[in-house]
């Protein structure tokens, strides 16, 4: 398994923790390393940004629909009963992937370009992709951040 620029899973976890603390929760401590056993996310929503490393790499966030809704609700400081639009979920998850990728990019020694974020219920991973998964827990809910070559 490889990560661009030898970025390790611990660094990715730290970035994700800092991003969630600043942008989603407005305080630290709600995103932690997954403490349970093997993690399976049902019907995941994917958000990803590709980096022009050689070979190309991808930062990908995936989670289930309910968690995506709750993350969006927190991100947008929405009330408990306010409906979350699907477009808001896609935009919010895409922006989180964008910020995660931007902070990963900052660790790379060379200048690389980033794509605009994409969001889909279909996995963007393709044959040959080697994504390392960082299993995280946000308020008891599963979130997977993956990084690797594609």
């Amino acid at each position: 398994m490889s990560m661009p620029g030898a970025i390790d899973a611990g660094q990715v976890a730290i970035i994700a923790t800092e991003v969630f603390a600043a942008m989603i929760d407005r305080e630290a401590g709600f995103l932690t390393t997954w403490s349970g056993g093997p993690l399976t996310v049902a019907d995941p929503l994917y958000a990803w940004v590709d980096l022009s490393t050689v070979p190309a790499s991808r930062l990908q966030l995936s989670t289930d629909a309910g968690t995506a809704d709750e993350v969006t609700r927190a991100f947008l400081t929405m009330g408990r009963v306010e409906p979350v639009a699907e477009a808001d979920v896609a935009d919010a998850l895409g922006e989180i992937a964008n910020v995660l990728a931007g902070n990963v990019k900052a660790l790379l020694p060379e200048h690389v370009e980033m794509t605009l974020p994409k969001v889909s219920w279909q996995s963007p991973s393709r044959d040959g992709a080697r994504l390392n998964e960082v299993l995280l827990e946000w308020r008891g809910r599963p979130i997977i951040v993956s990084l690797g070559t594609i």
Partner: protein
Amino acid sequence: MRALVIDDSRTMRRIVADILSGLGFDTSQASNGREALDLLDAGDAFDLACIDWNMPVMDGLEFVVAVRARREWRDLTLIMVTTEGERGQVVRALAAGAHEYVMKPFTPDALASKLALLGLLPFEESP
């Protein structure tokens, strides 16, 4: 004061606009640099523009260059809102005429501090 929030993510536009509204700004939004230029061309006057870097159609740097090419917009304060990975590129934006930058993720206090440094907030309101 009036602020223009330019970002292709409506989530980020909403968040930045909410922060600025809380600081007393009247806000408008554009989803890329071209839309923002269209607003300025239409005669909308702003004191501040908060500009994302990575946008379709016209990115943040292109917008800064376009604004600085027009004398009538010389008083518009430009703040880049970027990810950490674009820190090196921010130098280009500052050279092109942007005044300041904030790195995503940022807190409302971080943005308020930048605005205070630029004299766009009363200092007693700065964190």
